[in-house]
Structures are given as C-alpha cells and as structure tokens.
C-alpha cells in the first residue's frame, strides 16, 4: 500500500515537473523589414515579451516585401492566421484594402483605450480608416531641414522662421559663396515631400490632402495652389541651387551638402544621418529645424508618417497575448530600444537620445503632419508636377489642373 502511495506521489511530482515543459504558445511575427536595425529592435522587444510571458514565444518570419501581400492573403485564405502581421495602412488604394473589405482586420479602437501610450495624432490618422484604427505604429519618421552650423556661423545667420526669412538667408549665403537648400528634385519623391511640406502650411486643417487623395476633393483649391506658388517663389528667389530638377537626392544633394556647397538640406530624416556622418569633413556640426512657415502666425509643422505598423487578424488565436506584445512594444523601455537604434517612437517620450540631432528629430515628430498620397497615380503626378515647377514649365494653376486630370482617370 505504502509503495502505491509513494508511486502516486512520484507520479504527481513528475506531472508537476512536466507542466512547465508543456508546449508554449507560439506567436508568428510576419515582417518584410529585415533590413537595417529592425531585426535587432524586433529581437530585443521579443526578448522582453518572452520574459514577461514565459508561456509564449514569438517566431519571426521574414517575407520579401514584394511577396508579402500575396503570401499573407494566401495564408489567410488557407485558414491560417499569423498572429503578429506587419500590415499596410488601410485605404482604397492599399494592397491590403481587400483584407479590410473581407472583414479580416480587427478594429483596435477598444484595445487602444487601455495600456497604450498616447500616440501622435498624425501617426494614428495614417492608420485609421472611416473611424476605425486597424494597426498600431511601432516607429515613425519625419522630415526636416538639416543645416550646417559652421556655415551659418560664418555668414552670421540664424535659423529662418518664415519663407521670407529663408529667401533673405539665401541671399546672405550667396554673398558668402554658398548656396541654399540642397534638394534633389530629380528623384521625384523629395519633390513630392517638399510639396507636402508647403501644404502642411497652406492647409492649416491638415485634412485636405487625405480627402483629395481619396477623390473626395478637387485639387483646384487655393490651398493646393498656394503650396505650389510657395515653391515657385522660393525657387525664383534662389533658395535652392540652380538646376535643382537636375540634382538627384542621394548622389547629388547629399554631396552638395557634405561638400559644404549648400548650407542646408531637405528633406532630411533619420535614414540620412549615417550618410552625413561619414560624408562631412571633421569638425562640421549640423542641426535641424522644421521647414520655415509661410507666415509668422502659423505653428511650425514638419511632415512625417508611420514607418512600421502591425495589426490583428479577426480570426487569429491568442489575441490577448498579441495585444500584450503590442503593449510591451509600445512602453517606455521599448521606446528606449527604438531610440538607441536611431528610430523614433510614435508617442512623446522623456528619454534623452545620445545625439542631439536625434533628440531634435524626436521633438519634431510631435508637430508632424501626414506626408503621403496613397493613390499611386496622384503621387506620381505630384512628383512630376513639382519637377515641372522647378524646370519652370508648369505654373501653380497647371500643377493642380494636372492632378485633377489624373483624378479623372482613376476608378474610385
């Protein structure tokens, strides 16, 4: 009899010992971002999550960007739901719009109420469609003007606050043998960003771009025209080096700035800091400021948007754990991890970045406005149109007229 008891006790002991070895819950993280510092950031956040939830583990699955949409859709069609999928913002032109239409995405409005930080409005706006937020941002970026402090000191100029300041600064720089803002309109996308920046000032409501992007507003409006006029004005008054439409961004504009031919550079963000660090001769210091305003009464605004974001599939399992993962990815310790890797959290933080330039960049995020046109035809036309403003063959009125013409060719 005693033997039986001992045996039973031993069995029980074994069973309790075996319990922790029970299979862990695996969450699959799908991402296309296996470049730069992202893998390191993901791993550190996952390690923190696994420490907090010993019964769960996260497995990263890298999927090439170009195959991502199809793979995700195919997996979902096969009845399998990756728990932590990186997703594209939802809007009618999005490659993931069909997922939204099929009702596969969970609205995160309720989840966001507890345990998440207060996100910058512009970051959430990018991820919200018709009142529902479908994904959570991990990091964001913003575009500002970088300037060469040494040159500014040499010509005795301070940071310009308005476009008019910028124009007189351009003249002072010219007198000192320098040029204004290296820009790189030949590559298209910088030209687009310049326009979005001016629009962030000409449209104080910050809502018109998104509406026009979705075909709910025509482009022939004073705000859209004004932004183009400002570019024309700056270019006519020598703010940009001559022939900016002939300068490429990475090979032209970056060189002009690091060779100290121009005193400023736009659009600049965290991705270009490395290039400047290696490109500048020793002893050159550079800082940033938001693009000067059209008029003094306005608040400064930079442009920016979400870099990485992830969602929840309605039919995915273990949604509570997934949300726990997202909450950990959005807490202050994770913010520290982001900042250590020169990334910007999408909410205000009280963390000191090691470098001043990054600290300033993080500050500029708070005033960031959306910088994107999702409809590819319209985005392409914005870029071409600004190039036309630079080459002098397009007027502000023609600039918006072309956008309206493009809009007519798009099926909504």
């Amino acid at each position, binding site marked *: 009899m005693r033997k039986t008891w001992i045996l039973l006790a031993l069995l029980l002991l074994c069973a309790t010992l075996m319990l922790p070895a029970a299979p862990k819950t695996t969450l699959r993280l799908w991402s296309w971002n296996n470049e730069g510092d992202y893998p390191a950031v993901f791993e550190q956040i996952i390690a923190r999550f696994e420490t907090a939830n010993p019964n769960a583990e996260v497995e990263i699955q890298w999927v*090439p960007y170009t*195959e991502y949409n199809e793979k995700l859709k195919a997996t979902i069609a096969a009845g399998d739901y990756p728990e932590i999928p990186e997703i594209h913002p939802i809007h009618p032109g999005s490659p993931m719009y069909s997922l939204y239409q099929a009702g596969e995405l969970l609205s995160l409005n309720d989840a966001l109420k507890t345990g998440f930080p207060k996100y910058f409005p512009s970051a959430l706006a990018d991820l919200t469609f018709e009142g529902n937020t479908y994904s959570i941002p991990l990091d964001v970026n913003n575009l500002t003007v970088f300037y060469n402090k040494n040159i500014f000191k040499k010509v005795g100029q301070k940071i310009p606050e308005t476009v008019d300041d910028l124009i007189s600064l351009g003249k002072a720089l010219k007198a000192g043998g320098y040029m204004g803002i290296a820009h790189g309109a030949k*590559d298209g996308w910088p030209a687009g960003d310049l326009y979005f920046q001016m629009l962030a000032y000409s449209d104080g409501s910050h809502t018109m771009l998104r509406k026009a992007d979705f075909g709910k507003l025509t482009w022939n409006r004073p705000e859209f025209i004004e932004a183009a006029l400002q570019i024309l004005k700056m270019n006519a008054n020598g703010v940009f080096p001559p022939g900016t439409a002939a300068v490429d961004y990475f*090979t032209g504009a970056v*060189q002009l700035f690091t*060779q100290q031919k121009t005193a400023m550079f736009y659009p600049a963000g965290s991705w270009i800091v490395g*290039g400047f660090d290696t490109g500048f001769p020793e002893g050159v210091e550079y800082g940033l400021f938001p693009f000067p305003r059209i008029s003094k009464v306005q608040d400064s605004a930079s442009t920016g948007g979400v870099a990485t974001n992830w969602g929840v599939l309605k039919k995915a399992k273990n949604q509570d754990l997934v949300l726990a993962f997202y909450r950990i990815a959005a807490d202050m310790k994770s913010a520290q991890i982001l900042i250590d890797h020169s990334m910007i959290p999408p909410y205000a933080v009280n963390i000191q970045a090691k470098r001043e330039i990054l600290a300033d960049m993080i500050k500029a995020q708070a005033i960031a406005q959306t910088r994107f046109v999702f409809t590819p035809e319209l985005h392409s036309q914005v870029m071409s149109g600004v190039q036309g403003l630079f080459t002098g063959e397009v007027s502000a009125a023609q600039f918006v007229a072309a956008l309206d013409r493009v809009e007519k060719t798009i099926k909504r």
Partner: protein
Amino acid sequence: MPRREPFSRNLIWILIALWLVVTLFPFLWVLSLSVRTPKEVFTAILLPKTIRLANYLEAWSKFGFTLLFRNSVLVSLSSVAVTVFISALAGYGFSKFRLKGGSFLFHLILSGVMIPPVAVVIPLFVFMKRLGLFNSYPSVIIPYIVFGLPVSTFIFKSYIQNVSNDILDAARIDGCGELGIFLRILLPIIKPAVATVTIFTFMTNWNEFLLAVIFLHDKGLYTLPLGMSVFVGQYSAPWQLIGAGVVISIAPVLALFFVLQNQFIRGLTAGAVRG
C-alpha cells in the same frame, strides 16, 4: 590603292581624334574619379592629387559585388548553356533534315527577333506567378533563353548548312546515332559558331536590365546591372565609390574583350544578321 573616303586627310585626323576624346574621356574620368579622396570629387577634372585605392575595397563591400557577380555569372551562364544547346540542335534539325513545314517553323522562330521583351513582360509576369517562379533565378533565366533563341538558331543553321554532308553520312554508315553524330561529329566542327552564339547571348544576358528589375526583388538575387542601378539610387553613394563601382563592373568585360577582340565584335554584331 585608290582612296575611297570623300574627305581630306587632315580633316579626317581631326575628326577621329575628336571622336576618340569623346569615346575615351568618360572612361578616363571615371577611372580618375574612382581613386579620389572625397575632397577632390568636385574639384579635380582629370588628375587627382592623391590616389586612394581603398575606394575599391569600400565600393566592393558597399555594392556587394561578390554577390552581384555570382548572380550575374549564374544567370548568364545557365541561360547561355541552354540557348546554345537547344539552338544548335535546332540549327542541325533545320539545315540537315528535309522537314515538312521546316521553313515555316524556322521563320517563325526567327521572327522572334522582332519581339521586344517589353511587349511581353506582363504575360511573363503572370506566367512566373502562376508557376511560382516569380522572384527566383528561373524567372529571368527562362526569358533569357527564349530571347536568345532566334538569332542563335539562325547562326547555327547558316553555319551547319555549310558543313559537308559527307562527314555526317560517313558517321551514319559507321552506325552512329543521330544524337551521336550531333554531339561527336558536328559540335567539334561548329566551334566557331558556338563561340559567336556564346558571346552574343552571354553579353546580352549579362547586361540585361528590364526583366531583372521586374522579376528579381530579393537583394540576394540581384544581377550586376540591377544592383548598380538600385544601390546608386537608394543609398547615399559618394561619387568616388560610384566611380570605383563602375570600374569594377566593366573591368572583367574589358579584359575579356582585349583577349578575344574579333570574336567579340563578330559575336555582338551577330544580332544584326537576320535573313
């Protein structure tokens, strides 16, 4: 010897010298760019004060040339091998056998030279997706084989036509099978045609860009032209490194060319010979 050119000697020399300057200057400039220090990138025109060979090492790792060369060699060699083999077979079939509809089929294949790849990229895109080959080596190797076929078949057919039937018949009497004749008798005879076709298709595929940019998306699959276009356009690329990258890209081609000049000129202009 009578003089054929309608211009005077002096004028000719001046014009030739001028054209030589135009032809060679970009090369010399890029070479000079490739060894400059960052400081001299904009200032020097041709002769930099200091020579910095470290740029080459830096460019090699920045553009990932090891991988680019490996991919280009792999894609070009495998497509060339298949093209040469099946177009030689076809050339033999078309020239030494009396086939019903042979002339029609030959001209059908030959008409392929008129089809610009850009006209079929979208159906090929659909095709590759359907076969699950999109974003893989075969997605470019297969089109490279096909676009090489028309000219190659033409060259082999013309060449094999001139091979005497006696040799082939003798082998046939000796009991050699048709494939044996092709492999053991014919292939050694048509080596010059093989060389021409190899150079023509290899250079075309080595330099190809349109299909590569559409079908290859993983950095690990990039061919040399694709890698150069993407990396120069997307990362901050100092000019001296671009210069070194260009020199590295063209050096092997130039080296081969100087060894095999005549074969190269014959091979590369082979595409123009269409009947």
